[in-house]
């Protein structure tokens, strides 16, 4: 994939710079959110494992999805996450929360 260079950047504000990658890859922040979710889930899982000797991946994923939804919401405020990407994050997060609550 060939993307435009930074010299084509028009909006020099923080928001403009943050939004720049989406001009090349529409799903850029969706991938960032996914990476954030995976990292947070594994951190929570490992922390629980060290603390309680027994850990639950579904709980870690449920808690991480709440955090991911909040971060994505912040992204919509900064105009770096489009509404359809937010809806995608919201729906996937909601499914994980439902599975987590049903398991409890």
């Amino acid at each position, binding site marked *: 994939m060939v993307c435009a260079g930074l010299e084509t950047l028009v909006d020099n504000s923080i928001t403009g710079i943050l939004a720049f990658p989406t001009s090349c890859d529409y799903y850029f922040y969706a991938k960032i959110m996914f990476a954030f979710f995976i990292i947070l889930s594994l951190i929570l899982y490992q922390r629980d494992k060290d603390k309680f000797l027994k850990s639950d991946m579904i709980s870690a994923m449920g808690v991480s999805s709440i955090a991911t939804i909040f971060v994505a*919401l912040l992204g*919509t405020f900064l105009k770096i996450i489009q*509404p359809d990407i937010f*809806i995608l994050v*919201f729906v996937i997060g*909601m*499914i994980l*929360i*439902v599975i987590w609550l049903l398991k409890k």
Partner: protein
Amino acid sequence: MGKSFMDLFGNFMLIGLAVLSLFAFGVGFQEENNVENQFIDNSLMNSTYGNLRTQLGELRDESQAQKTLFESENPTSGFGTILLFSIVSSGKVFNGMIVGVFNTIIKLPIVFLGLDPIIISVLSAILILTIIIGLWRLYKLGG
């Protein structure tokens, strides 16, 4: 299958409340900060939010109506038990609420993630069977 009807009902109402809270927080946050293109502008998100609010809002009135019905019934003694037919009415009303919340929430992954109808069909079958068995145990043993 071992889940009691009460557990199932409690779980689904909590799920409805959790999803409603997420919606409410998101809508409130975007409205207060004047975000352009809010996610609630999407017609399906809007209708899901509205339906959840209506269903959970009706819960109080429905519960009160069932309580009144339960209190007004005169128990008759059966073989080693006491018969109360109002429990059947409670079962019917509250199982409708479980299915209502499930149907409202499941629409989102069907539309936005393109979930296969076969998966929905299997999940619905599991839920309905769990409800039927839970209700049967409730009618038979009272809990």
